């Protein structure tokens, strides 16, 4: 744990030195929230019926969708990005030469990205609440728990993409594919209720981990539902986590072995 924290601290110190980037990143949140607010207000009459069981307010619906999506984006891109950069600069070899274990190195390499995403999410949420979004504060712990499950369910995709970077210097477009699928079929912009979308699209959407995750997240944060009442969706997420993480970690370990066999840990 201490090793991962040391790496996160190093990332923070590095990022902190890029002051303009930090300021612009925070300012961009405001720029994003305002269009979402006005567009959602305009679309509220059309969307209200379809999202009635998920808060009923299209602005809140979209904000929760965006927050989940930026966590998915961070998850699927930060690990392959960190591995790719590490290979390119030689830091990966230097890190792998230390006594730190691979899980702690991975956690440390991407930990800062997650913390920064969390900070941005809180600011985004705060701005949205200033603009009138209603959030069930009592259910926020459940919401955080579901958000963590959403992240964990997407880590395998990141690990597979990172494995491809280790072995073949490409992500195989996995982060892009996951982002497109999550955006279109995960329920970020519209309800994925079987009553609204075609059955075959609904069937496909069931295989997108963000879909049950977002359903549960909105139920808790916007409707104040308990964790018990969203248990089917939570269990579906846990299923994804159990099933996919084993594959992801196996792929990463094998890719690392392949890179060690071919001597390409420091050749981009």
């Amino acid at each position, binding site marked *: 744990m*201490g090793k991962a924290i040391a790496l996160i601290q190093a990332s923070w110190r590095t990022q902190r030195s890029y002051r303009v980037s930090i300021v612009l990143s925070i300012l961009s949140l405001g720029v994003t929230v305002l269009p979402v607010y006005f567009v959602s207000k305009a679309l509220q009459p059309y969307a209200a019926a379809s999202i009635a069981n998920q808060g009923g307010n299209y602005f809140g619906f979209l904000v929760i969708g965006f927050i989940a999506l930026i966590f998915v984006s961070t998850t699927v891109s930060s690990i392959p990005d960190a591995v790719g950069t590490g290979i390119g600069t030689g*830091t990966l070899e230097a890190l792998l030469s230390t006594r730190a274990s691979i899980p702690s190195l991975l956690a440390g390499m991407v930990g800062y990205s997650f913390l920064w995403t969390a900070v941005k999410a809180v600011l985004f949420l705060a701005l949205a609440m200033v603009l009138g979004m209603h959030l069930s504060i009592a259910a926020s712990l459940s919401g955080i728990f579901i958000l963590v499950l959403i992240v964990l369910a997407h880590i395998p995709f990141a690990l597979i993409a990172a494995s491809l970077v280790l072995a073949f210097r490409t992500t195989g477009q996995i982060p892009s594919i996951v982002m497109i699928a999550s955006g279109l079929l995960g329920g970020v912009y519209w309800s994925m209720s079987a009553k609204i979308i075609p059955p075959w699209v609904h069937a496909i959407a069931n295989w997108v981990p963000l879909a049950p995750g977002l359903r549960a997240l909105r139920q808790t944060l916007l409707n104040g539902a308990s964790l018990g009442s969203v248990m089917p969706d939570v269990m579906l997420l846990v299923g994804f986590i159990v099933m996919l993480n084993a594959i992801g970690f196996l792929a990463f370990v094998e890719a690392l072995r392949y890179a060690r066999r071919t001597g390409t*840990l420091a050749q981009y």
Partner: protein
Amino acid sequence: MSGIAAPDDAPTAAAMNDASLAASDGATHAVVLEGISKSFPVRRTWGEMLRHPLLTPRAPVLRNINLSVAEGEFFGLLGPNGAGKTTLFKMLATLVLPDAGTATVGGFDVVTESQKVRSVLAPVIADERSLYWRLTAYQNLELFAKLQGMKGAAVQARVKEVLDVVGLSDTAEKIVAAFSSGMKQRLLIARALVAQPRVLLLDEPTRSLDPISARGFRAFLREEISGRQGCTVLLATHSADEVLELCTRVAVLDHGRLLATGTTTSLARDLGEERYALFTRDATHPALAALVQRGVVGALTVRGSEDGWERVEMELTGGMEHASQVVATLVEQGVVIARFERVPLPLADLIDRIVRRGTEGAPNG
């Protein structure tokens, strides 16, 4: 003239390898390589891949390397570019897996006990890009001290100590991006030292240092790392100064083959080609030509003159005993000799000779 004879042929490279292994028996070994081989896939063109999709050609990088380095030894690894030195180092650092053979560091296997190997060994094989350029020197070392498992006040104390050792205390709070190449090189070394390794791998550590810094660094390696800390050091270098000043033994690699191991002096002697300079008034004296004709000495080369004395260089085998017999014979024959001295073989020549001999002795294919 009787009693002067051309000595026997020098031992083969393989025999020298075996001898070097035997010589170090009895000592505690910090590093042992047994039958280590490694090959890498050959990058092919699109055309070649389409023509022969199932072929997976590989290029051998290390071939059946047997080598042992004793605890506390300062060991030099020499050889031309592409000889396999860096691959060998990466293998010891657990960053590259061997295809065949076993390698142990501090008694731990580099494949099955890689975590334990990393607890006793620190490599300096990465280049300066592997540093965190936006962090200060202190922060870089602090990070790696923590990654090596240090905690609390021990981190601060060790980082300060190492910064002092590499002469970066005054610039500890400066970001690495503002460092010169030499300073970055010193920081890389400091990063390896922070974990107090028992075995240190240095791949051309002085390549970015100016001559004065390089000399200071060599003194630091000799006195601090090897002397006080008793660290085993494996040094890959092209610098003759480093080898002659630091290494107790060297190994010569070429195209993945270990051609020879031993001290530079013993290698020069074993190769049977020691060079001597003779200062005489008459370089064309028939006694000199007669020695060459009988094969007692190698070809003579006249290399200028000093105050009217001509400098004649010759290759002689058989060591001092044989050299004294040659001098006695020449004096007896009336050759006026002002000076007769051994010319140290330049490192580059030594490597070149070992490589040439190895190439000639290598099996076809």
